[in-house]
């Protein structure tokens, strides 16, 4: 089965048609996507700004990382699940959109970022309580850039046609 026929099949499913053609599902799912961005992104920003020494200096890194974790996970699930539904609604448009592929490449880099920095930064944040390491600052800076890139590329998808 070719890619194009797979995408056509996806668009012919009831779920895809409902999201694409109904008046409410698309904006509601889009709204959930944005709320997930605010929840996940707000905590990501707070963590990164703390690691960079710009915010929340009176809080321990480990306190923040540990307390944010369940909410960041919830935000991540909201963003990814709603994103998958939005993609399911119009896969052919996304397949042709350069911005979409930039976004997916950045998303892959988020995975690389996690693999590279998990052990040294996020898994054992108590080590950063006394002093934030250069590696952790680098992780925070890259995380900010990736996140900004994901937002810009995501927004550009709507303008690719």
């Amino acid at each position, binding site marked *: 089965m070719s890619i194009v026929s797979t995408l056509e099949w996806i668009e012919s499913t009831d779920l895809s048609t409902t999201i694409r053609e109904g008046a409410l599902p*698309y904006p509601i799912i889009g709204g959930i996507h944005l709320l997930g961005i605010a929840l996940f992104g707000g905590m990501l920003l707070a963590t990164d700004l703390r690691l960079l020494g710009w915010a929340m200096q009176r809080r321990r890194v480990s306190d923040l990382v540990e307390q944010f974790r369940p909410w960041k996970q919830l935000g991540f699930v909201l963003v990814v699940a709603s994103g998958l539904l939005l993609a399911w609604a119009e896969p052919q448009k996304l397949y042709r959109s350069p911005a979409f592929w930039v976004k997916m490449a950045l998303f892959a880099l988020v995975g690389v970022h996690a693999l590279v920095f998990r052990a040294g930064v996020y898994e054992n944040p108590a080590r950063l309580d006394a002093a934030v390491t250069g590696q952790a600052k680098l992780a925070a800076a890259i995380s900010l850039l990736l996140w900004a890139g994901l937002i810009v590329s995501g*927004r550009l998808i*709507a303008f690719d046609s």
Partner: protein
Amino acid sequence: MSALSFFEWLTTSPWANAMNGPEWAFPVVQSLHFMGFALSIGTIAIVDLRLLGWGMRRQTAAELAADLERWTLLGFAVMLITGPLMFSADAVRYHYNPSFQFKMTCLMVALLFHYTIHRRATRSEVSPIAAKLAGGVSLALWTAVVAGGRMIAFV
């Protein structure tokens, strides 16, 4: 000068022309708008979750609010610059858009609530029920602002 003629003038302003100029202008400003609301609403949500008692319990709501206040404000500043820029680009159409009107009403109430009742709930000793109520109302108001914003493109 009526509001409508002001909005008509806005659409001919230099910054509206800039927004309607290169194709990338609108999405880039909109992206900044998203980053601004992630910063402001995200940091407000952190405080709200504490007020509700759902998370962040190793600090008081007062401590979190004091830590994050300036970042919330920075997010507001970004939103309140990028938002009107986007509005200028097509002011008359937005003016008649019911989702836009809904969003602006919610935004006014949310901002007013944030700097009055919400601020009081994070600054002085209030009963747990009052704190929960303030956190819950705040989350609901900001959710409505985001949802209303998303609907603008569809209504």
